[in-house]
């Protein structure tokens, strides 16, 4: 126990980072799960990682702005492609195209990194992130940008919800689905780009999908679902970090598995 108390301050930044990510992601995850485009964030996260890989090949790696810019540009290309594909998808489901974006981005990243020293290391880092050593500055920047995105989402919440939950109705109201999707996926891409650098593709995916699923399982009302998602992600993050400290495990995978276990518990206790 002394170890735990001694160790908690060391993971303070990581814990705060996971909570900030969890807050934003369980909200966006609600949209993603309701849209039924579960793998869109894997695809977007992979596009961000592809941008990072390209930056490394060009020698722009590291914490610099140029590294982020390339990751963001790559993610925005992904947003454009996916917003466009929503219109194109009829006989082939959108999810299939999203899968294709994911595997192609992954293949391209592997190809780029095969020419870079320590390429496999970067591929692994893209998967599991570097949550344990997140710097306070990096966390502050991310939190600030998330705040701005959160405000945009709050101001436009009714229309974003309409596009997500009742796309046909929003078309009847004369909304241009392509532009709304583009805006949604661009903001989403920005969130994912920042998150992947810290938490890695695996945890980013988990934070998006698992708390939102828990909320949807436990309630029918949007507000309650969101609240459950936030509480769920905060609690499971805490459990994951404590488990990682006690058992000396890598942080991101431990949090992810704590969330999965938490969802199992939710599944058991939910009303039939």
């Amino acid at each position, binding site marked *: 126990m002394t*170890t735990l108390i*001694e*160790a908690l*301050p*060391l*993971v303070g*930044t990581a814990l705060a980072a996971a909570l900030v990510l969890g807050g934003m992601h369980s909200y966006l995850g609600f949209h993603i799960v309701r849209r039924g485009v579960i793998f869109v964030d894997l695809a977007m996260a992979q596009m961000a990682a592809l941008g990072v890989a390209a930056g490394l090949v060009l*020698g722009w790696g590291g914490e610099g702005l140029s590294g982020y810019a390339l990751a963001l540009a790559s993610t925005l290309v992904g947003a454009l492609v996916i917003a466009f594909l929503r219109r194109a998808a009829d006989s082939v489901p959108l999810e299939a195209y999203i899968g294709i974006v994911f595997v192609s981005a992954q293949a391209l990243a592997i190809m780029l990194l*095969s*020419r*870079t*020293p*320590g*390429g496999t*290391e970067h591929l*692994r880092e893209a998967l599991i992130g*570097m949550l*344990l*050593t997140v*710097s306070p500055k990096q966390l502050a920047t991310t939190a600030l940008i998330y705040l701005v995105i959160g405000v945009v989402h709050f101001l436009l919440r009714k229309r974003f919800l309409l596009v997500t939950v009742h796309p046909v109705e929003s078309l009847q109201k004369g909304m241009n689905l392509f532009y709304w999707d583009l805006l949604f996926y661009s903001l989403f891409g920005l969130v994912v780009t920042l998150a992947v650098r810290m938490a890695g593709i695996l945890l980013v995916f988990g934070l998006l999908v698992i708390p939102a699923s828990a909320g949807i399982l436990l309630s029918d009302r949007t507000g309650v679902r969101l609240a459950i998602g936030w509480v769920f992600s905060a609690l499971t993050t805490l459990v994951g970090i404590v488990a*990682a*400290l006690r058992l*000396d*495990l*890598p*942080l991101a995978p431990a949090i992810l598995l704590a969330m999965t276990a938490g969802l199992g518990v939710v599944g058991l206790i939910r009303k039939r």
Partner: protein
Amino acid sequence: MKKQYNTLLMIGSMTSLLLLAVQVEGKVRVVASIPDLASIAAYIGTERIDAATIARGSDDPHTVELLPSHMLKVARSDIYLKVGLGLDQWADGIIDGSRNGRLVVVDCSQGIETLEKSAGRVSAEMGDVHPFGNPHYWLDPSRGAQVAATIASALAKVDPPGGEHYFIRLAAFQEETDRRKVEWQRQLLSTPSLQLLTYHQSWVYLAAAFNLEIVGVVEPYPGIPPTASHLEKLIDLVTTNKVGLLLQEPFYPADAGRFLARRAGMRILIASPSCGGISPDDYFDHIDQIVGGIAGDVR
């Protein structure tokens, strides 16, 4: 039930006694990036210090999975020994994250004359893992003695009462280095061919110390797995020069080495650049094992 409780109590009091003992002794706590630096520090510090390592002997020192316990170790330490030259960049994350204000960080590459890649085929546009020179300098025993001097000074600064002890031990280290080097060179004298192939550029300092000739490297560029055409070139090289040995690190894929061994009839010596793991825990014994392996295999 009661018996169990008693046993627990006993274990509990024994542990606290042990903890107390450690605290009373007030040892200088040293954490190193790799076991080799920890082993050298332990030689210099003996019972005055506690030397621990982050990467284990079986780990690839270029990439280390960061765990909470690493931060904790460093948070409680007095001195951190870095390899430097870009090898253990991951250490910076641990050092910053440990928030240990009194930690003395020692870059053990200071004052070391570095070597470039022996093959000299690394072009600038391909990037280079280690722009300041090859970081595997501890595999040359003379440079190891230089590292020992750096560590002795750092220990003396942190623990002035032990200063004399550390410099006596440093002299012993230098003496043992000289003695062992003569032994190792004698061992290699009877080896007809000193040409070899290595998987990664981990061995340039070892080669320089013992006049070994690295005729080729399986990785076309540091950290990049071999392509088919590069392997074909290596087979030509090995057959024309009659190279008999491939020195391979245990943490890199073995298939390329096996392919070369099959096609060109080479022998593979699996050797770790770090002590511990598959090697002895002691710095000198580790080099002894590698030299012995080369002397036995190159013929």
